[in-house]
């Protein structure tokens, strides 16, 4: 039981991930794809940051 999620407590309001979302966080093919995407984003950001 999650004691945090009582009506009108702080933990009552935030969005919580569905089972599918949690599954995708460690689903290898999706995470390999995200690994590539995040790295490209980071490299782009690093490129923009160097002057």
């Amino acid at each position, binding site marked *: 039981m999650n004691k*945090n999620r009582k009506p009108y407590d702080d933990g009552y309001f935030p969005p919580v*991930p569905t089972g599918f979302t*949690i599954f995708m966080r460690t689903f290898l093919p999706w995470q390999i794809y995200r690994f590539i995407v995040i*790295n490209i984003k980071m490299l782009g950001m690093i490129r*923009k*940051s*160097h*002057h």
Partner: protein
Amino acid sequence: MAKVVVLGAGVAGHTAVSFLKQRLGKKHEVIVVTPNSKYNWIPSNIWVGVGIMKPEDVTFELAPVYKKKNITYKQARAVDIHPEGGADEANPYVTIEYTEEGRSGETENVAYDYLINATGPKLNFSATPGLGPEGNSHSVCTWGHAVDAAVALKVSIEKMKKGERQKFLIGTGHGMATCQGAAFEYLFNIESELRQHGVRDMADMTWISNEYELGDFGMGGMHLKRGGYITHSKVFTESLFTERGVRWITRAHVIGVDPGKVCYETLTGEDYEEEFDFAMLIPPFSGVGLKGIDKSGQEITGDMFNPAGFMFVDGNYTAKPYEEWDAADWPRNYQSKGYPNIFAAGIAFAPPHPISKPMKSPAGTPIFPTPPRTGMPSAMIGKAVAMSIADMLEGAKETTHTASMAEMGAACVASAGAGFFKGTAVSMTVFPIIPDYTRFPVYGRDMDYTTGEIGLAGHWIKYILHRLFIWKAKLKFGWSLIPE
């Protein structure tokens, strides 16, 4: 032959030393002064703090690395800067006091042509009574602190295995602390460890911080594109806390840490208490206490450093209300005001103002995060300063490289549990670090490069970065090709 002296061998100082030596070779002398014998890759201390890495995984001896590269290494702490020289010394110099075994307490004046102050922070535990490893809470700010925290965590886990509930309190230990990201990582690594040990249901976990809302991280939070909406990082962070069953207390200034209990004041002026069995609270930072001395021997510390001990550089330090803050206020070349051959890099430079909006309780207690200067900006500043100095030694009239935090982004990968197949981490990028409402009028940031997501990919990135940055810091083959 010119002498370039670098004070400090943390991320900023070590990066500066490395690039200076690469550029200057044998033409000029590069001297590094640091009180520590070991380099510590601080972002990985949280893994030491939960016992899944050993100190030797996040540290290495500096002396062999500097010897290999012909860099003069003095294990000492800087005490005074004499930017105009002294009565018996025409050239500027810095007074250092050795910490090396066998020479402890011995002082020396080290002359310089260029000086980089990269002394980093003093962990100011004394700002809160009872805070810190010598008081009643733990820290992961140094590898030694992290080792002690891991031992205490193990004790708590054993108690839970025997049926004794434990209360964990993680966050910031003062109204003006920064580095919420490190505490955030530690919180979720503990949470993950407790699950691994099968005792998560025996733990009550609470976050306490000086942030106005969760997800502020000392930079006013950030807006992200998620699920077809643009949402504040508060939503993303609250979601994670709720999912992992972590209660949170925000807008809190910890007044004192007693054994098993913190007292805190909130922005609304109320005082509360929170009990704990295990607490890890990040202290506020200050400068290391360097002094400035002029030619006649008079102290000029107040001209060179702000009251917290951080060095004034080329930022706009005019006091002005939050609404008038400008990205252009932030330093670009990190040259000291008044002394163009002195620079400050990393945490040692004085920020012109916070990033999060300043807030005060009715009693006047400031309760808001001070600006974070994490590894990535510290390294980029260290490199920019090193390149400028190298160019100036080769004839450039002024600085040639800039590294404004309002013109650079940062990547932060916050571990939320280790394991090659089951680990997760929050991967965040923000661009620029300092919101620029002229370039990006609505949110102050480029929404294409300000991102956040949680997943296994983030854990891989965090682990790879750990390996890459230790490789880079050891100045092994190809080190300079690894971006900061």
